[in-house]
């Protein structure tokens, strides 16, 4: 399942299937991290404004 333990069979369906899976998982991870980082940066900015 994972790229480092993947059965690299030269078959289009396999690449489409596993490629779609990883595309979805990567999209979700990026969205979550993006939101968390933005929230963290907002928090820092607010603290700085508050200190000023």
């Amino acid at each position: 399942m994972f790229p480092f333990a993947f059965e690299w069979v030269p078959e289009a369906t396999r690449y489409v299937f596993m490629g779609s899976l990883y595309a979805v998982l990567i999209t979700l991870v990026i969205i979550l991290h993006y939101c968390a980082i933005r929230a963290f940066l907002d928090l820092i900015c607010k603290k700085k404004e508050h200190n000023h």
Partner: protein
Amino acid sequence: MNSASVPFDSAVIPQGVKRCQFKWFLFWIAVLHGPLLVGVIAAIMCWGLALNVTYLNNNYPFGLWIAADLGVIALGGGAFFTGFLRYIVKIDDLKNIVNYAVVIGVMCYASALGILGVDIGQPLRGWFIFWHANVHSMLTEVAFCITCYFMVLCIEYLPLLLENRQVNKLGFFHGMAHHLHEAMPTIAAVGVFLSFFHQGSLGGVPGVLYGRPFAYREGFLVWPWTFFLFILSAIACGPCFTILITWITEKCARKRLVKRNVIDILARISGRLLAVYVILKTLDTVYWISVAGKAGAPLGSFYANQPYGYWVLITELGILGVIPAIILLSAKARQNENVLIIACILNCAGIFMNRWIMTVQSLAVPVMSFDKFISYHPNWVEFASTLMFVWVGAIVIMLSYRYLPIFPQEKELNPS
């Protein structure tokens, strides 16, 4: 004692809304734990004593569990379809019900995964389907898509949790909820992509069984017609299930939570989709009857085994298909709440019946001259372990309704 007299409870209830007394809330939660415990015992029996404690056998590898699985996944389709209408088609009024559709969707998909966890008998080997993926199997696609879509639903549910009155006071969580809301169209689009394929592939599973003339269908490229019919039926009944659960919640809470025009939008869309589905399903059935007849499997042979007589066909297409479609298409009928709810119940029951027919009846019909029809009815272990997720769902909905701001129109509709 009212909710205000229990500080830890009233502190987390959304501001400006009324909830029942805390003691009654605890009472109903405790009541639901009774049947839940029976379900837990049944699930432990399945894991500990293997599946021979059920009535499943080689004639019926797909029984109540799989039919219920397919049913709840179709009913949970309301989450992705409402999200699609709200964030991609941009029907703004649906923002007032999309939160609840997500909660219902989370529970439907959690139930589906939970039932599968019991059904596979050895949950410790559940990861095999991911690790040793057979990419040519529609069930593998279903397993991958359901798991990923459950993650999507959890991410959609996350901002609701973060908007709890106390949690939202923390700056990071407040910001996280805000940014998740901003990212929701992308998340909804991922959800639509996943749902489209797993709803369809669930229909594809019986559709590709060329040794089963009751189930087999021709199709488009690698997808049998049942692939598209399952998607259509899921998006036709999902919104009706959302309406139904919202109505039950309103009756339990004894107040209106969503405006009528929002319900009407969902009912109207559901009615149109159901009408299209019933027409296509009828055409599919007529074509299937002629093709299967020419192949040596006459129509009578499919309905010769009791209890699956002709009444199955009439009930599925007529009573649970045409009637709710007519009601949902009529603006006058939709205005009558009782009639609308009857249509929603018929629509949801029709989906369950369709899934039962496609997974249980289609595999039970004898296809060899030496085959005999054997009847199947689930035993208490199957019923209890399936219904367990209904009780869990009710508890999660009760907790979500009490402590999370799910209904944006509640304050407006119920001024204190």
